[in-house]
C-alpha cells in the first residue's frame, strides 16, 4: 500500500448483531482525489464513513487516516464531516454555526470562516438564523461548517440529497474547486449521474466493495453503456473486494 495515501482501510468489518453493515472493505484514497462511494440505501455507506472517522469501532480490521491509526482525536482537526441531515443549531445564525464548529475543531480563523461562507455563496445570509433558511440554504450552511477549519479530508455523506438540480451542479463545482486546492473528498451518493464527476468510484452493496475504478474503467470492465448497468453487473458477479 502506498504510504502517500490520505486514507487506508484494511479489511474493515462492522457487525451490528447479526447484520453485517460493512464486510471486509479495503479502501485507499490519495491526496486531492474525489472518491465516490456509490451504493443503494442501506448498503453501508454511512457506516463506512463513520468507521473511517472513528465514530464507530470496527469489529475487525483497521483504519489509517493521514498515516495515523483511527480513532485519533487530534487528526479530526483536519477532517470535515458533513452528515446526511443538515445538522445545525437552529437558534444560531449561519456565521455563528460556522464559527462554532471551526472553534470546536480548534482551528478558528475569521478569514477562513468568511472564505467558507463565501465559497457556498451565503455571504448575504450569514447573519440569518438557520431557523429561517430553506432546505438548500441549510445544506450550504452545513457544507460551510465542514470547511471553515480548512480540512485536508472531507467526508460528505449524501451531500446532495434533497438538493435541487441547480444547486447540485453548484455543489459539485465547489467540490471540484476544493479538490483542486488539494483537499481530498469522499462523497457518498446513490445517484449515478453524480458518480461521473468523481475521479474514482467504489461500488458498495450489502457492506461489500464490489468494484473500484474510474467511471469509464468500470463501464468498460462491465461492458455496459451506463453506470447503472455496470453496478448491476458487478453486483450479480457476487465478487467481493475491488478487483483491480
Amino acid at each position: 500500500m502506498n504510504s502517500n495515501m490520505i486514507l487506508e482501510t484494511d479489511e474493515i468489518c462492522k457487525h451490528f448483531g447479526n447484520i453485517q453493515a460493512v464486510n471486509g472493505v479495503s479502501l485507499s484514497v490519495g491526496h486531492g482525489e474525489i472518491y465516490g462511494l456509490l451504493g443503494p440505501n442501506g448498503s453501508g455507506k454511512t457506516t463506512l464513513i463513520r468507521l473511517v472517522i472513528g465514530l464507530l469501532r470496527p469489529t475487525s480490521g483497521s483504519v489509517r487516516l493521514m498515516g495515523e491509526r483511527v480513532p485519533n482525536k487530534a487528526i479530526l482537526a483536519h477532517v470535515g464531516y458533513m452528515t446526511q441531515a443538515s445538522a445545525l443549531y437552529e437558534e444560531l445564525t449561519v456565521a455563528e454555526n460556522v464559527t462554532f464548529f471551526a472553534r470546536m475543531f480548534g482551528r478558528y480563523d475569521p478569514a477562513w470562516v468568511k472564505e467558507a461562507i463565501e465559497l457556498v455563496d451565503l455571504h448575504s445570509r450569514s447573519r440569518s438564523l438557520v431557523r429561517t433558511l430553506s432546505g438548500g440554504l441549510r445544506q450550504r450552511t452545513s457544507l460551510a461548517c465542514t470547511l471553515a477549519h480548512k480540512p485536508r479530508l472531507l467526508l460528505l455523506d449524501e451531500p446532495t440529497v434533497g438538493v435541487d438540480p441547480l444547486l447540485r451542479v453548484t455543489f459539485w463545482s465547489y467540490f471540484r474547486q476544493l479538490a483542486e486546492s488539494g483537499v481530498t473528498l469522499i462523497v457518498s451518493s446513490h445517484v449515478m449521474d453524480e458518480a461521473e464527476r468523481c475521479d474514482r468510484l467504489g461500488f458498495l452493496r450489502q457492506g461489500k466493495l464490489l468494484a473500484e475504478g474510474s467511471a469509464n474503467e468500470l463501464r468498460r470492465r462491465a461492458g455496459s453503456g451506463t453506470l447503472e448497468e455496470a453496478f448491476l453487473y458487478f453486483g450479480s458477479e457476487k465478487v467481493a473486494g475491488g478487483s483491480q
Partner: protein
Amino acid sequence: MNLGRVFTLSQRVMRQVLRDHRTVALLVFAPLLVLTLGAILFRAEPPAISLGVVNEDRGVQHPVVGTIALGERMRDELDRSGAFILIPLSREEVDDRLRESAVQGVVVIPPDFSANTLASRRVVLYLRLEGSNPTRSQAITAQVTRAAMVTLATLTLTGGSAKNSAQTGEDDTGLPVSVQTTYLFGGAEFDTLDFVAPVYVAFLAMFFVFLLACVAFLRERSQGTMERLAATPATRTEIVLGYMIGLGLFALVQVTVILFYTVWVLNVHYRGSLGLLLLVITLLAVVGVNLGILASAFARTEFQVIQFIPLVIIPQVLLGGTFWAVADMPAYLQPVAHLMPIYYANQALRDVMLKGWGLAEIWPNLAVLIGIAGALFILSAWMIRREVT
C-alpha cells in the same frame, strides 16, 4: 361534521400513544408513584422527637401524701404522650445538644417547680427549642403544654384542695400553664415559609436547569449536531463541562433573582452568607445539568423529557426534605431521602439561611454534594461516549 373523520383521528391519536410503550406505562404508573409517596408522607405517624429534659425540681414535703415531685410527674407525662424520646440533660449541655441535633428541644423544670406550682396552682416551665423547623417547634410546644396541663390536673386529684380546675383557667393572662419558650435558632417569628423558602429556591434552580439540559442535549442528538461534535477533536468531558458552565450561569442568574425576591419582597428570614448560599445552589445546578444530560439519553422526544418530572423531580421534592423534614418521615423512607442530591443541598441551605452557619459547619453536606456532582459528571460524560461509538 364527519364523525368518521373524527373517529379516524382519535383512532390515530390512540395508536400513536399506544406505540410509545413508555408513555402508556407512565400514564398509569407515574400518578400511582406520586400518590403513594404523598399518601405515605401525609399519613405517616411522625416519629418520636428527641426531647431533652433538665429536671432540677427539688420536690415538696407534704404532710399527708409525703414527697410531691411534680417535675418527675411532668417528665412521666411527657413520656406517656409517646411523642418524645426523653433524654435527661444538665442545664449546661442544653445548647450543645440542640446545636448538634441530638435533641430538638429541651424542657427545663426549675428547682422550685413543685413548690411554686403547689403554691400558685400554675405551671411555669421553660422550653428551649432548636427552632429551624417551625412545624416541629409547634408540635413540641403543643405536646409540652398538654403534658403540663395533665400534670396540673393530677395535682387537683391528689392534692385535692383547690377546686378551680386546671383546664378552665381564670382569665387569659392567668392561664394555669405557662411555657416560656426560647429558641436557639430562629424564633417565634419564623414561619413555615422560612423553613421552605431556602430549599424551594434551590429546587427551582435544579428543576429548570434539569429541563434545559435535558431538552438541549436531546436536540443536540435529534438534529444531528452531536454526531458532528463527535467528529471534532472535542472530548466528552469538554462537551459536558461546556454545558455545565453555560447552563450553570443561567441557573446562577435565576437563583440570584429569586433569592433577592425571597429575602426582600417576601421577607423570608435570612442569616448567614449569601455567597455560601449561591455556592450551594450552584452545586445543585451542576447536579441538575448532569442529571438532565443523563436523562436525555433515555428520552427520544421532548414529551418524554416532560415524563421525567414525575419520576425524577417530584420524588426529590417529596422525599428530599423540601416540605417534610426528613426526620419526620417514616424510618424506612429516610434512607431513600439520603439518595437524593437535593437532600444535602436542603440541609446546607437551611443551616446557612436559618442557623447562620458557615463553611466550617456545613462542609460535610457540601462534600457529599460535590461528590454526587462529580459522579454524575463522570456518568454523563460516559453516557455520551456510549452513544457516540
